[in-house]
């Protein structure tokens, strides 16, 4: 179990970080997912752990997102704005042609722009993209992890790719 969690913890953190845009919240979500897997499913075969862990983590992220939506509505009513809302362009730095930017800096900028663009996607599109493109789950596995139909996964994924291409620009990367 420890080896499995060690293998997935960084990716899990990045998943949660992209969704929450907050280190502490992301760490809490990953810790809850790890604890749930260890307490409830430690006795299952190792082959079952990856889909179970993804399912637990995605559910935790979705719950967090719902709570945030409610919280943001209250804040909006009281005129305090939303968490982390800013107008920073996702293209900042990505399409810069400044020669001073070395390759490492350009990658960092591109990485930040990608993270912002992913964060701004609707949650289900974000999940579908990350699970399919990054985690390389197939459609059926992604559907199980997200708790939806395979058709929904295909739709969310296609829309995510379309939006990312539009937001990040035709020349990215």
């Amino acid at each position: 179990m420890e080896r499995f969690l060690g293998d997935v913890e960084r990716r899990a953190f990045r998943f949660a970080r992209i969704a929450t845009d907050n280190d502490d919240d992301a760490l809490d979500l990953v810790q809850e997912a790890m604890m749930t897997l260890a307490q409830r499913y430690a006795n299952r075969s190792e082959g079952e752990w990856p889909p179970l862990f993804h399912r637990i983590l995605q559910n935790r992220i979705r719950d967090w997102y719902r709570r945030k939506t409610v919280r943001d509505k209250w804040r909006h009513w009281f005129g305090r704005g939303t968490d982390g809302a800013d107008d920073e362009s996702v293209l900042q730095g990505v399409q810069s042609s400044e020669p001073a930017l070395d390759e490492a800096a350009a990658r960092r900028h591109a990485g930040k722009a990608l993270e912002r663009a992913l964060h701004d996607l609707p949650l289900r599109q974000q999940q579908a993209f990350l699970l399919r493109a990054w985690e390389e789950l197939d459609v059926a596995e992604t559907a199980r992890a997200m708790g939806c139909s395979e058709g929904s996964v295909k739709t969310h994924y296609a829309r995510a790719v379309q939006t990312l291409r539009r937001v990040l620009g035709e020349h990215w990367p």
Partner: protein
Amino acid sequence: MTDQQPERARRLVAAAKDLLDDQLTRLDQPIVDRLRRARREAVEAGPKPPRRLWAAGLAAACVGFLAVSLWIWQPAATQPIPDPEDLEILASAEDLDLYEDLDFYSWLADADVRT
């Protein structure tokens, strides 16, 4: 156009994957430490002991037994049979004050008889 779109999508996905993998290697050390701590806590917590379903079942059976016992052994219902006279009083539209002071009127009637 239709050939270019999947190709562009493939390039975007490949680049995104590359960048996301790259970011994994650049996590801040405090975050890596907290992840390690969380992992160890989860492993040490281990699986929860199986729920004691038999205890819950026993408790439910006891409650059921008690409920059935009370239902069976309760004294026979002793609903008072309504007195026709009461019914008459309740059905009448007369002022109920008369019946509330019935003792007084009985005494008055006796007093009239004696005088």
